[in-house]
Structure formats: C-alpha cells, structure tokens
C-alpha cells in the first residue's frame, strides 16, 4: 500500500450536549409563541439567563474569561438548534463575534449581552447592526487615523434607530460618537477574521433553516392526502423536494468545507475568503430553490402565520442578505476567478497551487 497521507477527520460533537441544546429550545417553544406577526423580536432575558447557566451563551469563550472553551463545531450545533425551534437570540453575535473580539484584544468580558458594530468608513452608507437595541453593550469597531480600534461601549451611550429584517430580528442603525474614545488597537488581520466569521455565521444559519424547511416538507407530504393518496406518492412532488434537498446538501458541503478550513488554519488563509464566498453563494442560491419548492409542496397552508414553515423559509431569505447580498458574494467569487485567470481557476477551487 502506498501512503495515502494523514486524513484528519472532523471530531464529532458530543451527542448529549446536542440533545441538551435541543431540549432547552424545545421547552422554550412549548411555553412561548412568536407573538404578533409585526412585533419586533427582542432578546428574551429569562431564556438568556437559562442558557447562561448552562454555559451556552459564551460557548466558545475561553474558560479563563468565563466561557465554556468549546469550538465552532459546538457553536454550530447551538445555532442549528435555535434555528430548528425558531428561537431568535443574538447568540452568534454575542459569543462568536463581539466577545471573541474583546478577548482577542485582551479585554475583560463580563455578563453583559453584546453585539458587534462595524462603523462604515467615511462617506459610506450606514450599515445595519444586528440586535443593537437588545444588547447591553455594543462592541464597536472603527477605523482611526492609525488603524482599526475597538471599544466595548455601553448601549446607553449610543443613539439607536430601530429597524428590523424580514423576520423582525433587530437590524438597527446606530450612531456612536468615537471622537472622544481611544479604544484598543486591533490588528487588520483580526478585522478580516471578524468579517469572515460574520459571513460564515449566516451561511451556517441558512443551511440549518433550509434543512428544516425540507424536513417540514417531507413531513407534510407524507401526511397530507389528496386524490386518495399521500402527496409524497406523486412524482412531481418528489421531484420538487429532491431538487430542494440536493441544493441544500451542496450548500452544506460548501459551508462545512469553509468551516473546516477555518478551524484548521486558524481563520487565516486567503483561500478561506474564497471558500466563504462559495459557501455564501451556494447557500444563497439554495435558499431560492428550497423556499420556492417547500412552499409549493405545502400549498396555501404554508403561507400562513399559523404554520411554522415561514420560520425557516423567511429566516433563510433574511439571513442570506446579511453581511453581503447573494450577488455581493457571487461577485466576490467572480473576482477571485478573474484574478486567478483560466489557468488558475482549478487551483483556486481546490485550494492547491
């Protein structure tokens, strides 16, 4: 046998942990509904407290700083469980983005609920900040004269104009006065890492939502009887679901590949930017097909507030537009291809020069 090289395989996340995450959100959903359709979602502090007691709100924070010392793999399971049960919280923004950045620049992290705000450069339109009005503190990043700076700003010191996305999650416009603040220096590499993480979080959430929409479609067509037989027996219905499932599966492959590279390389390689753009493109386009086909097989009931399908389809559509539209990511991929040229395209795709 010739050497086939060392294969490193993904360490599996502890199943008990995953079951625990699932149970917390399932319990919560039993006692809470989504409220009126137009109500802006807020961070439920009682649930947050419960998750905090279980060590889940700072899942990936270092143990020295009060975190649970877990990895993005565990965090992916947490985000996925929240998506599955349609529970909206700033878990990713708090743990994976805001608290991570504070720790990375050597700052203390306390029990406050945090989100992340990247100030647009001069002359750039304001960007929307997720969950700003729900947070206690807003980790604000801006570009000073001598490079990037970050400050952990109390939300009360910030002017917040409320906004919401398609699923009524807070997407607020914030104005932070940074002229009097010194903040802490942040290396540009950390800013690049922050942007990669933010983009990948949404790909992970979109993939989770798409799988749920497909699973709901399978359940529906197995139980709904028309023309004397379950909808699942109609080939036209099978085809719609098969196409949706195939799209979601490839989006998941692309997203997991990007996460795998990120964890193996410490989020540092240039190739990771391409892989994340690929994941966001695949997940974004998959959301079109899955949403269309899932609603088609559900019939009119799937368009109601009462039915849960929208918790996944509308969420996928909302999240695919965060931290860059689908076309923004398509152009990123195209630009990478243009730079690689014909001869460099395959090495770009495989990540091997």
């Amino acid at each position: 046998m010739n050497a086939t090289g060392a294969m490193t395989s993904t360490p599996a996340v502890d199943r008990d942990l995953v079951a625990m995450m699932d149970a917390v959100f399932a319990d919560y959903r039993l006692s809470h509904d989504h409220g009126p359709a137009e109500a802006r979602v807020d961070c439920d502090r009682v649930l947050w407290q419960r998750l905090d007691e279980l060590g889940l709100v700072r899942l990936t924070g270092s143990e020295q700083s009060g975190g649970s010392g877990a990895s993005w793999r565990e965090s992916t399971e947490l985000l996925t469980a929240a998506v599955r049960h349609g529970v909206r919280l700033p878990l990713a923004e708090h743990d994976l983005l805001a608290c991570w950045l504070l720790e990375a620049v050597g700052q203390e992290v306390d029990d406050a609920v945090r989100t992340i705000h990247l100030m647009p450069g001069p002359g750039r339109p304001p960007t929307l900040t997720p969950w700003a009005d729900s947070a206690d503190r807003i980790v604000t990043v801006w570009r000073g004269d001598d490079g990037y700076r970050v400050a952990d700003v109390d939300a009360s010191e910030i002017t917040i104009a409320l906004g919401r996305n398609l699923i009524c999650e807070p997407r607020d416009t914030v104005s932070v006065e940074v002229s009097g603040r010194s903040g802490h220096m942040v290396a540009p590499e950390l800013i690049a890492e922050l942007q990669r993480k933010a983009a990948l979080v949404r790909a992970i959430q979109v993939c989770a939502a798409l799988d749920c929409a497909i699973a709901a479609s399978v359940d529906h067509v197995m139980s709904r009887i028309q023309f004397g037989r379950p909808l699942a027996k109609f080939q036209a219905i099978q085809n719609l679901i098969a196409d949706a499932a195939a799209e979601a599966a490839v989006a998941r492959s692309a997203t997991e590949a990007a996460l795998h590279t990120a964890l193996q390389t410490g989020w540092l390689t240039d190739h990771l930017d391409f892989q994340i753009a690929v994941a966001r493109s695949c997940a974004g386009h998959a959301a079109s097909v899955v949403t269309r086909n899932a609603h088609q097989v559900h019939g009119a009931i799937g368009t109601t507030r009462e039915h849960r399908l929208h918790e996944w389809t509308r969420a996928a559509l909302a999240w695919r537009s965060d931290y860059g539209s689908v076309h923004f990511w398509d152009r990123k991929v195209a630009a990478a291809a243009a730079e690689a040229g014909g001869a460099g395209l395959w090495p770009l795709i495989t990540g091997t020069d």
Partner: protein
Amino acid sequence: MTPTLKRLVPPASSSNPAADALRGQVRAFLAEQLAAGTFTPSVDAWLCGWDETFTRSLARQGWLGMTVPERYGGHGRSFHDRFVVTEELLAAGAPVAAHWIADRQIVPSLLKYGTEEQKHEFLPRIVRGECFFGIGMSEPDSGSDLASVRTRAVRVDGGWAVTGTKVWTSGAHHAHAFIVLARTTPVDAAHRHAGLSQFIVDLAAEGVDVRPIISMNGGHHFNEVILDEVFVPDSMVFGELGQGWSQVTSELSFERSGPERFLSTFPLLTTALELAAPQDVSCDVEMGRLVARIAGLHHTSTAVADALQRDEAADVSAAVVKVLGTTVEGDIADYADLRTGDETSCGAVWTDLVSRAIDQRPGFTLRGGTNEVLRGVIARGLGLR
C-alpha cells in the same frame, strides 16, 4: 413537532496533504503534455476524447487502475487518490475516454466480483493501458428501466450462448470487451430484478456485430452491439448467476458521484476566463454562481469519494452530485452560448468548444441514470417512496 432532516451527504471533513502533492504531480505532467502539444483541452473528453497514446502515458505515471492491488499489477492506492487524479485530468479537458470505463467501473467491479482468473486476466492489462472496456446495460427497449433487459443467456456446453442487442455502448468499436447484463431465467413479474446475470463478452468473439450510432453532430462514440448466440465460457460469468441486478446497482455510486458529473464542460469555463477582460468577469454574477457551484460540488463529490473509500452506502449522495453536477455542466454550456453570436468574435477555438458543449449537453442529464430517475433515488433517501 420540530422536523429534523437526515443527512443526505456525509460531512466534507478530510484534508489530505498527500493528495495535494499528488495534484501537483498531475498538474506538472499535464503542463508538460500541453506544452508538447499532445492534446487540446476539450469538453466531454471522458466520452469523446479517445487517445490510446495519452492513456498509455498516464499508465506510465501509475495513474491507471490506481486502486488495483500490487498482486494484480496495480498500485494499491486509495480511491481518494484516484479521485484526485481524475479530477485533475477532467479539469484540464484531457482525453481520457479510452480507459475511462475500464478504470472507473470495471476495476472496482472486478475487485469486488471477479474471479482470480478474471482479475489476473484483465487487471494488469487495464493498469498498463492495454485493455479497454465497454458497458452493456441499455437496450433498445431498456433505457432507465434496466430490469426490462431482453438479452438472454442460454446454457450450452462449457458456457453460455448470449443473444440480444445492447445500445449506447461507448467505445465498443475500439474496446476489447464489455460487461453484458442478460437474463438467465425468464421474467417473474413479482420479482423483476431476479434472474439477471453479468457476463464478460469479448468484443472480437464470433457473433458480435458492432454498429456505429452517430451522434447529431457527426461524432462517433456510441454503438449498437448485436449479439447472436455469442459463446461465453463459464470462466467469463461475472459475479454470481442471478445476482446481476444487485451487482449492477451496488456499483452505481462509483459511476454517479465522480468528477465527470460536474467537470464535463469545465474547460469552457476556463477558456471563458482567458478570453474575457478581468474587469468584466469581476462583476459577472453568473460566472460567480457557476464557479461557486463547481467548488461546492467539488466538496460534495470529495465527501462521497471518502464514503466510498470507507465502503459506506453512497447511492443517495451520489445522486445529489449527479443531479446538480450535470445541471451545472449544462448551465456552463448555456452561459457560453448565450454570450456567443455573430456580433461577437471569439475565434475558432471558442466557437468549437461552445458548439461541442451544446451538442453534448443533452447527454449530461441522461447518461448514468437520468436526472428524473436520480430524483427518485433522492426521494427514496428522504423516505418519500
């Protein structure tokens, strides 16, 4: 109740530095070959690019029959290594049709079902690039519905007499042998898949008539093979009598999940990049979507290859690769064709590639199981049927 979805595709979880080194070796070899002018990159070259000289030069590199154990003259490499080499060859549009069926399908089948005699007879020659194979499954009245094959094998002294007609046999006019699916007992309506067996049939044997099926663009790779009481010795019965159906279906994942299911038109994409101004490409969202899809499928297909290496069932994940992969192959052909007209002047190389791609395109979603059949496989994997 909150729904959960069973995974259709295994995790894309391995990174393999040795495979990266292998990619480098294949690329260096291809660069030399291109510089020497031994081949011109083409679309669908795994079906249309029959070049025995190129095949033998690959054999000299040790890149044919890679998974064949050394005792059968092979290289004892992993399935993953073979996957890497084939990906590189297809991405470059190299002419690999001559050995394609033997290397992809016959090798794993022989290793799994072949007798010692059959393995010693064929494997060393396949590894050396001296023995080419075809597949005899489809018939004039049996396309997607393979269980309806009518070719029959009748017991005779010392073997079997095989009679029937096979169609779409790629390369039968050059190949040495093909594996024929035939009925050895009459159809039982209650068990349609029973009573089928496989035979290794020498294409030079008496009673074999190979007739060309010319494609709509004039190309000749398909054939009709008429078998008139062709004698097949007992030693060339392939696998177990009566187990033909499960033998054929258990090997389909090798055929359906490979890189030839998403890279058939890749050379068109690279040529498009070479011809276009970079600033135009950079804002071309459709180019971005296509490249992203190919990259995503590369990960999916790699994950399936790893599952096959671990001997796991991969029929559903292979169907996912083939449905989306062959669709994007067609999308690339269309992408190119939509940008080509009498007001554009891209030269003969481009026009030829585009013509070939749009002529080959209908076949992408037909061969190796139509996408309609494969959607059924995915639906079954989801528990819908």
